[in-house]
């Protein structure tokens, strides 16, 4: 008896499910085709080509792991990889701190004119990375920029924003954080508004100050959003290209060439598609590793 009762309760949903296969299939058909064409296909041939000496035209030979071996012996690749990691390590925390701080200020009732300020914070995000590069190049020009002009007026010496590789990277980091603040801020504002007000009321009755409230209530409550912000920003930073192209063109010299620029140059300027595919796969593995590490950390934090 019990068995048949269980059967009865199980059967209807199963039957219902099978009725609706055509409709969802029609609905997702377009995206399935696009996914197969522009994600699965490139991923597969990319993996295959990374074991060949393909140049984009004509025949090619399988050369085993040669591309990967050459890649790890290539100092230009290492420089690009280290520079990319350095950029990511600098820009992601800066963006995180700035956008979280600004989101808190915008949400807090004490700050006046927050809705107008929010629009101001948003404008950088509307500017394309290419133009952001132009804008900061204009601001930090060594001989003509406003910043150096102000520094000289204040009695300092002009700073080599363009010809010093590290300072040049610093300018890109500032520009990148400036540009990315708006989107992270938007995510944080939504998350902070979702924290129940009663938590703060209880905390302030218990005499907790704003810093304490932020640390003990806001920060833990928005942990999932923080995770998303860090993940998205890391991926974006690892694949940054247009900002560098227009700000310093990977310079001075080639000192600030990042990975995507390296892939672009080997693949399309020198026609080494196979070699570039191998570099792409290394970048992909790094991104996946970053995502998995962050997922694990996030799980651990949430389970605590």
């Amino acid at each position: 008896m019990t068995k048949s009762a269980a059967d009865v309760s199980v059967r209807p949903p199963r039957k219902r499910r099978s009725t609706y296969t055509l409709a969802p299939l029609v609905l997702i058909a377009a995206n399935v085709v696009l996914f197969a064409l522009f994600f699965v296909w490139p991923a597969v041939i990319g993996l295959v080509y990374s074991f060949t000496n393909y140049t984009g035209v004509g025949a090619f030979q399988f050369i085993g792991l040669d591309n990967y071996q050459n890649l790890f012996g290539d100092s230009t690749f290492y420089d690009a990889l280290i520079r990319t990691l350095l950029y990511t390590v600098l820009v992601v925390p800066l963006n995180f701190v700035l956008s979280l701080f600004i989101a808190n200020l915008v949400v807090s009732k004490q700050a006046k004119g927050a809705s107008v300020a929010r629009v101001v914070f948003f404008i950088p995000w509307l500017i394309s990375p290419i133009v952001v590069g132009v804008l900061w190049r204009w601001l930090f020009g060594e001989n003509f920029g406003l910043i150096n002009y102000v520094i000289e007026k204040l009695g300092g010496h002009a700073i080599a924003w363009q010809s010093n590789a590290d300072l040049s990277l610093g300018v890109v980091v500032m520009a990148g954080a400036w540009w990315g603040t708006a989107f992270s801020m938007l995510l944080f504002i939504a998350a902070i508004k979702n924290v129940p007000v009663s938590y703060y009321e209880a905390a302030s009755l218990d005499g907790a100050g704003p810093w304490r409230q932020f640390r003990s209530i806001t920060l833990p409550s928005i942990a999932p959003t923080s995770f998303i912000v860090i993940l998205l920003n890391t991926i974006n930073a690892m694949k940054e290209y247009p900002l560098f192209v227009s700000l310093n063109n990977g310079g001075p010299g080639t000192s600030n060439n990042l990975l995507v620029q390296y892939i672009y140059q080997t693949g399309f300027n020198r026609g080494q598609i196979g070699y570039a595919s191998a570099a792409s796969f290394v970048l992909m593995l790094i991104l996946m590793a970053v995502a998995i590490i962050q997922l694990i950390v996030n799980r651990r934090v949430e389970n605590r």
Partner: protein
Amino acid sequence: MTTTDTPRPVEGKSGRTLSKRQRRNVRDGGLRRAVPATTLLWILAALYGLPVLWFVLSSFKPAGDLFSLPLTVLPHNPTVSGYKAAWDSANFSQYFINTALVCVITTILTVGVSCCTGYALAKYNNRWLKFFFICILATTMLPSEVMLAPEFLVVRNLGLYNSFAGIILPAVLTATGCFMFRQFFLTVPDELVEAARIDGARELSIFLRIMVPISRPIMLTLAILSFQWRWNDYIWPLLMLNDPNKFTVQIGIQSLVGAQNINWSVLLGGSVISMIPLILIFLVFQRYVMSADINAGLKD
């Protein structure tokens, strides 16, 4: 990923009385706290706004005054000669039309396709739908920049090299779009679908007649986002397009920057022109971007 933050609960009377006492507390220390918070906010806003302001003001200076010391904040004899030179030179107006065309078509396709997929992912329960959901999730980890070379070969093999279709089609599928719609349709009660089914409506007409109309706010939000993404795209159009008559605005600006001697007057004018459409769209539809619960889509 599970969400730990619960939506703000609707509180009863006890919450009210509490917040009244709270308000008095705030008022006592209110001014003491409001002044530094407001100052800090506006200092930061100034830091974020000044670079843009300086850029825009500089673009109104005549070419000869750009580098003349002392630098002045306001242009002495404001002129639009830089804008004019940019617009007339280097096919800029053609670039503008091309970019607008690509953006509009891609945005329409993205919104349509994402709406369909989001609805299917939210309202149907199939094993292969779940699998497809994970596939879409994977695309966020695999941006096209990562597979530049193979994706280029695929699009070339499809015969789309040097055509607008080559930059439009690969950009249509976006994980963010699908997630936004999925999240929205999850909040639509299933009873609505059930009732329509009982009335004898066919599956696709439920979607077209009921679900599409109610998802209009999400459509607008995604449309703005998509338009922004495509307007600012650089690397993919650069790879795909060979014919200068098909170039987009971003390529045009980069070709000015890449020149041996940068003509700053033209560059500033062109850059400011390229910023105008997005800023206009944003100011008109600000509400839809600001209030959008974009994280909702990404978080799940």
